[in-house]
């Protein structure tokens, strides 16, 4: 190494660091821009009426997103009801049986399901629910979203339970506590924060998901609590209104985007609180 190249190398070093810096902050710019635009365009349309009214026909001023809020709520509940117990069950199995053919295939299936595009899950829900029921429904949308939630919950459960120390389980078993109770009353509560985090993140993910709803929940301009009928959902409303040619509908879409992003950010905060509050330190 000849000495006169030292300065060149030092400059290169500094330049590289600068480049890494600039590129890192540049990639954060879109988030700032998106949040800024949504706040600028959306905050002004938020009011009580916005949350309590249903959309008005084209041309009429005002209107709100009450039906989409109800629809999103219904869809998330329908998705979560079967997938939370099923996901936690499968997660317990995978963490208790690390080896074995069933675990191998189940893990592979989780991996594949997690990578499956959401629109394909929409096709599945269409074939499994919409066709037999002969109509679009909240139920079909919820089932599509439920399949999406499953791999996230299973992975979160398995990974957290793997972190629970073996000594805890041994202690419980040594006291004569049956195996199933050891899992349900000792191991599961110890891993609660991780499992809750997984559930909250998956709820945030499916609440913002649109693609599977296009041909399952389908959208509905009216208030509907019936799970056998089409419902609107926040992301679906944003998609339909954003791609419409009416400025008034764009305004509602910005407002709805504001609500949806707020909801996602809130869930993120909640996840952080859950982790801090309940994290079991071993």
């Amino acid at each position: 190494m000849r000495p006169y190249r030292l300065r060149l190398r030092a400059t290169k070093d500094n330049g590289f660091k600068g480049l890494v810096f600039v590129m890192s902050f540049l990639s954060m710019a879109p988030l700032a821009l998106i949040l800024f635009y949504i706040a600028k365009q959306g905050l002004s349309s938020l009011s009580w009426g916005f949350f309590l009214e249903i959309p008005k026909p084209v041309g009429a001023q005002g209107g709100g997103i009450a039906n989409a809020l109800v629809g999103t709520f219904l869809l998330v509940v329908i998705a979560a009801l079967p997938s939370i117990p099923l996901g936690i069950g499968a997660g317990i199995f995978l963490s208790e049986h690390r080896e074995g053919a069933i675990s191998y295939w189940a893990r592979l299936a989780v991996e594949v399901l997690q990578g499956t595009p959401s629109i394909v899950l929409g096709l599945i829900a269409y074939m499994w629910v919409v066709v037999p029921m002969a109509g679009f429904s909240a139920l079909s949308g919820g089932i599509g979203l439920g399949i999406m939630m499953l791999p996230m919950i299973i992975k979160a459960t398995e990974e957290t339970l793997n972190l629970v120390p073996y000594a805890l389980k041994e202690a419980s078993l040594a006291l004569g506590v049956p195996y199933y109770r050891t899992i349900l009353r000792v191991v599961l509560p110890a891993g609660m924060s991780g499992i809750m985090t997984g559930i909250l993140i998956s709820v945030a993910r499916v609440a913002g998901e649109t693609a599977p709803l296009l041909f399952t929940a389908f959208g509905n301009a009216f208030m509907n609590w019936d799970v056998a009928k089409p419902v609107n959902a926040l992301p679906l409303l944003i998609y339909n209104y954003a791609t419409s040619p009416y400025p008034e509908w764009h305004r509602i879409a910005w407002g709805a985007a504001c609500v949806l992003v707020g909801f996602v950010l809130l869930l993120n905060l909640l996840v952080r609180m859950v982790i801090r509050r309940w994290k079991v330190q071993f």
Partner: protein
Amino acid sequence: MTTRPYERPSSGWQESAFQKGILLAALAIVVLLGAVFLSLLFHSKPSIWAFGASFVFEKTWDPVSGTFGAIPFLIGTLLTSFLALAICVPFALAISIFVGEYFRTGMLSSLVKNVTELLAGIPSVIYGFWALFVLVPIIRSIQMKLGIFPYGVGILTASIILAVMIIPYAASMGGEVISLVPSDIKEAAYSLGATRQEMITKVILPYSRSGILAGILLALGRALGETMAVTMVIGNSNLLPSSLFGPGNTMASIIANEFTEATATLYLSALIEIGVVLFLVTTVINIIGAYVVKKTSLGG
């Protein structure tokens, strides 16, 4: 814990019910995946029988005359995904090096980590909405200056917004593997007189190459299947894309756009067959990605 002495510790119906329950839950996942694949295949049967292999090579997609070919969407998907990847990789690498090497703890690193996490959490329809109202006008004005027909929407616009969406996936994996590089080999490089930049490019990056590659593959899998943001800005033209600035369609966006319009059985099954192709492509990419992750013993 209220285990009474007369209870037999590990038998009884609860015990076996619990064991069977979790076994069934694990089996249910395998069955679910099998059922997903078989129903996709079953419902695309009419189209597979009608077109056979020519489905993948036929250039026309014309529901009126009943001719269905997937090549414009295959090309559209590959173009947008790889273009997005090309835009995303330098930025994702920068973030990985930033949080994995330069700032492993402290305010700046948690800021960058949190922001990338939030970017991953924003719903895709919001990205599409934003791109439609902010990115499209910018691209349109650039096209006017360049003298190209100002579509605004198109392959390039879709790729840019896709790149923003997949940066977090590539970056989080990259940051993780870079922070796992053992410090003794880094110190060895320093003691030979390497600068930090030389150490990063000649020690860290080669050492964590496969982990970074896995992150990029996962991001690619994401990009291939991404639907809403792409559907909103790609321009929805069923012809072969003529240029990067021109409109096109991807496999996901054609399904999103036309599925509810498809009334004929053949039309419907052709769209489902596109779903099968999309499912297979993303599955292969994701399995390779998961395999690489496993080989680098990162777990997860």
